[in-house]
């Protein structure tokens, strides 16, 4: 009997391994019962997920879209994993955040989560990673819902692990809102199935064509849009987010802020462009106009709210709501440049917000709190951390040579292309608000003296500084060499505008 070459088998099974490796590592972490063993498993699994994601992206680049029939059941009957430029790119983003945050975790987790709960923390972390990777990999509408719930349930657990009892209430509120959101998505999927009898996204796209204007399909679209807007915390459905991000442990905030809402934006892009088709979704319904006004309102409301926060973590949480606005704005421009801006901002924002939250995690480790007063004089007492914070903060503002500039460049380009001068002006104006809230922290850190009785503070350990610096360096690197990110985002945008199926 001839055994197939193992390397070849591994190669063809990549889409499944992407999800299966983190999934299997989760129960192993729980069974390990030893925090070091659980950490080793987490680190190994998350870095292998990153390697697989990069391999997948390279394969898509070389050979085009990958279709993988799970369990050998041919699509559209079986579950299909379909990897094209868009989700290969999203997979690389999600798994690199997962890997970097995992590398950063141990010191921060030791100080914020009791030892006996740490294996379970790593278990929930890996489940959350499984969920977000699964959402991005799958080409099956119902499978999206299942992975959405895997990611959501594990993130409720992760948030409730926060030190103060306020974390419990934040997790509960998020659970209620999150469940309403995903049940709305389930209703949407149900109506689509009712009209087409299929769940495969590509098959859905074909079979929806003749029934597009029927009422169930419109209802499905409405439920779906609202559900996914709750999930991504689009203004005014963002109320769960500030508390959840503020009360969660630092590691969790950094991870969820850079993956959870991003993956919801991905689902929105996927359903609008691939399943419904941009012609239907934006031409025959007023959704685009609604999304543009809500995202602009959200950008201004949340940036202004960020300015008045005294807790730096909460300030960054409000800033996240504003940044979701930019992504949705990019999507609803319905042009290649706008969509490129939206997709590239999805990537860029994950990098910079990840770096900012990791820096805040270092401060949390040393100061035990993240109030603005705690940052007094930190620029000289924790120089590396605050330097990284400053760079990522500049990127948040959109200073040239950083990733933030690249995204805003595409968004403004798309606005001007359409002749929407006021929108372009508003995008620029909103950057000024970002200047204000980032500057407040930098001013306190560099131009205020620490209080006389402040205990001596040392820099965070290297195990935390290295991942922080890697993410910060990435915000500069991808700001200068835009070929990789903006290039891929552009190809994905062209594919989506052309119908999203090939």
């Amino acid at each position, binding site marked *: 009997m001839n055994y197939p070459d193992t390397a070849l088998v591994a190669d063809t099974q990549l889409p499944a391994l992407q999800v299966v490796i983190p999934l299997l590592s989760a129960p192993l972490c729980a069974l390990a019962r030893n925090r070091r063993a659980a950490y080793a498993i987490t680190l190994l699994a998350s870095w292998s997920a990153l390697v697989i994601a990069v391999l997948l992206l390279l394969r898509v680049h070389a050979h085009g879209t990958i279709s993988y029939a799970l369990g050998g059941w041919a699509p559209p009957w079986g579950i299909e994993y379909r990897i094209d430029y868009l989700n290969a790119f999203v997979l690389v983003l999600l798994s690199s955040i997962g890997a970097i945050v995992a590398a950063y975790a141990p010191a921060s987790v030791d100080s914020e989560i009791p030892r006996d709960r740490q294996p379970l923390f790593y278990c929930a972390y890996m489940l959350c990673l499984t969920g977000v990777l699964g959402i991005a990999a799958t080409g099956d509408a119902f499978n999206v819902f*299942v992975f959405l719930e895997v990611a959501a349930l594990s993130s409720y657990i992760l948030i409730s692990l926060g030190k103060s009892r306020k974390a419990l209430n934040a997790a509960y509120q998020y659970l209620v809102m999150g469940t309403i959101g995903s049940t709305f998505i389930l209703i949407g999927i149900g109506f689509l199935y009712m009209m087409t009898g299929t769940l495969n996204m590509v098959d859905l796209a074909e079979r929806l064509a003749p029934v597009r204007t029927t009422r169930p399909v419109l209802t499905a679209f409405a439920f779906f849009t609202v559900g996914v807007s709750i999930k991504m915390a689009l203004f005014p459905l963002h109320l769960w987010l500030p508390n959840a991000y503020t009360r969660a442990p630092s590691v969790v905030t950094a991870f969820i802020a850079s993956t959870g809402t991003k993956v919801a934006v991905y689902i929105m892009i996927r359903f609008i462009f691939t399943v419904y088709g941009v012609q239907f979704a934006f031409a025959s319904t007023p959704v685009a106009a609604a999304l543009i006004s809500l995202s602009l309102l959200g950008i201004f409301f949340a940036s202004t709210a960020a300015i008045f926060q005294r807790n730096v973590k909460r300030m960054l949480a409000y800033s996240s709501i504003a940044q979701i606005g930019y992504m949705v704005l990019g999507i609803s421009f319905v042009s290649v440049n706008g969509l490129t801006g939206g997709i590239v901002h999805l990537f860029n924002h994950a990098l910079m917000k990840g770096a900012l939250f990791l820096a805040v995690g270092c401060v949390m480790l040393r100061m035990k709190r993240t109030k603005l007063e705690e940052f007094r004089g930190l620029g000289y007492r924790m120089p590396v951390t605050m330097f990284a914070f400053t760079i990522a903060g500049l990127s948040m503002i959109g200073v040239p040579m950083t990733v933030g500039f690249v995204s805003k460049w595409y968004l403004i380009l798309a606005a001007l292309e359409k002749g929407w001068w006021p929108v372009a002006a508003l995008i620029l104006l909103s950057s000024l608000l970002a200047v204000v809230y980032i500057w407040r922290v930098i001013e306190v850190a560099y131009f205020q003296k620490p209080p006389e009785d402040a205990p001596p503070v040392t820099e965070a350990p290297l195990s935390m500084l290295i991942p922080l610096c890697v993410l910060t360096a990435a915000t500069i690197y991808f700001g200068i060499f835009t070929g990789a990110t903006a290039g891929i985002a552009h190809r994905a945008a062209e594919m989506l505008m052309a119908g999203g199926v090939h």
Partner: protein
Amino acid sequence: MSHLFSHYNYWIVIVLMMTGFYTVISRGNMVKKLIGLNIFQTSVFLLFITMGKIKGGTAPIVMAGKEDVVYSNPIPHVLILTAIVVGVSTTALGLALVVRIKEAYGTVEEDEVQAEDIRR
């Protein structure tokens, strides 16, 4: 009129959905909110099951020698089995959180918990 009643299963779905949703929004008691959430989810299960039913359809088991049998669509049932598991775990996690909140705050009323949060 007959049109109204021939789709009574959908009416049940709508009534359940709105009952659950209203309970989630209007109640301040965290346990009641979860019960509302559960009813809301159950209505969606019914919506799926109801679309799988075919008049005169039987369980989809292929029998030798019988070819003109009408089968119900089994796929919604399978989907909802998964969704029920999701619903059960959501409820379990939510109740676990409520137990922890009761231990930490001494109450499960939303406004009292919020008042405590603001006080400190």
